[in-house]
């Protein structure tokens, strides 16, 4: 089937088998490996991408369902080779260890900050409730999101 959508700010026209999910399309169709395959059941959150600014589980959503939508993956966060404010905060505050959950964490946080520029720590926890991290214990991730919040600066 044919697919046309916006990917990281640019038009993308491609095709994919009917049974592919967004995650299959990104990793196997378009060779964008930043979005990770974790549980495959929508529980772990590491495949999170943004669709029209909202967080989406790429492993659960059929590729056909993102036709015409505006998709952002972790590869789309930097601009002109410069890291996004959230990525910088994650790096500076040590909010990443093995890194497998990081793309999903960044995009869930991105969606939160777009809706709430000055979130409370509780709101950050809630926004990241679907993103599992088995290394950090979450404390530094939450600190990094709060530090990157535009309303906090």
């Amino acid at each position, binding site marked *: 089937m044919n697919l046309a959508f916006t990917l990281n700010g640019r038009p993308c026209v491609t095709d994919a088998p009917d049974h592919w*999910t967004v995650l299959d399309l990104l990793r196997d169709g378009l060779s964008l490996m930043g979005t990770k395959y974790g549980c495959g059941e929508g529980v772990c959150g590491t495949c999170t991408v943004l669709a029209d600014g909202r967080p989406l589980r790429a492993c659960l*959503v*059929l590729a056909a*369902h993102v036709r015409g939508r505006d998709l952002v993956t972790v590869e789309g966060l930097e601009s002109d080779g410069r890291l996004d404010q959230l990525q910088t905060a994650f790096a500076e505050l040590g909010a990443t260890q093995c890194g497998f959950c990081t793309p999903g964490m960044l995009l869930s946080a991105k969606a939160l900050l777009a809706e709430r520029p000055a979130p409370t720590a509780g709101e950050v926890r809630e926004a990241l409730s679907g993103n599992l991290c088995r290394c950090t214990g979450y404390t530094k991730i939450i600190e990094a999101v709060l530090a990157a919040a535009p309303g906090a600066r």
Partner: protein
Amino acid sequence: MRLHPFRLLEPESLPEALDALGRLDGEARVVSGGTAIVPMIRLGLVKPDRLISLHRLSALARIGLDGEALEVGATATLADLERSGLVRDGWPLLAEAVRRVATPAIRTSGTIGGNLAYAEAASDPAPALLCHDAEVRVAGPGGDRAVPIAAFFRGFYEAALEPGEIVTGVRVPPPPQGARAGYVKFTSRSAEDRPLVGVAALIVLDEAGRCREARIGLGGVAPTPIRAGLAETALEGEAMSDAAVRAAAETAAQEAQPLSDLMGSADYRREMIRVWLRRLLVKLRDGAA
């Protein structure tokens, strides 16, 4: 890991979707947001040859009014519902329950029609919709019909849908004048989990503080979401004293038919009904209207 291969049909209209479902009886499943059917396919629980997607039926995504009632189309997402000013202002109990479903990313794609058709006992929206005496709108080869929500949940993961039928929406009457309502969700593992026990309650008090009307919806405590009718009767006409509230919660714990699973045993679920229904009723009794 790829999904078991299927052909995807993307009808442009409801009649086209119903026609496809009728022709492919037994071979096709309907997909809305995909948050339920995709994991089922991945786990090998179902292996449909065709999936019929509702995503092009934009008319089904509407959230609006039908007279005094809220009319929500089947493909309205949970994220749209929780953000809708209309729902938050007029149906705060529903907004509160929807906001507790899983995680933000699931609510982005999960739809209210999918949630109902999946007929999961541990649904967050269902107890709230039960308290509102909602009606599920269904379309099929025999025409359209409206099913009272209490009759819609027929059994364990079983909705009252006949072959060839599709959920098209839900009609939610407004709460009674002066109603106080709330939803509490208790999870035994992590916050975003399905509820071990989900409790929705809507009460109306008279001038003397007696309970004129009580509606109690429970999730996770029986093979389907249920109304706790005996507990409601126990409460109505009562002064909502601590003892009366405790007795109503005990009645609800007795009329539930909880199952044991990895989240908790049947006994534990009964105990959690006692605790969380009592706390919610006390909060509603003591809180502002």
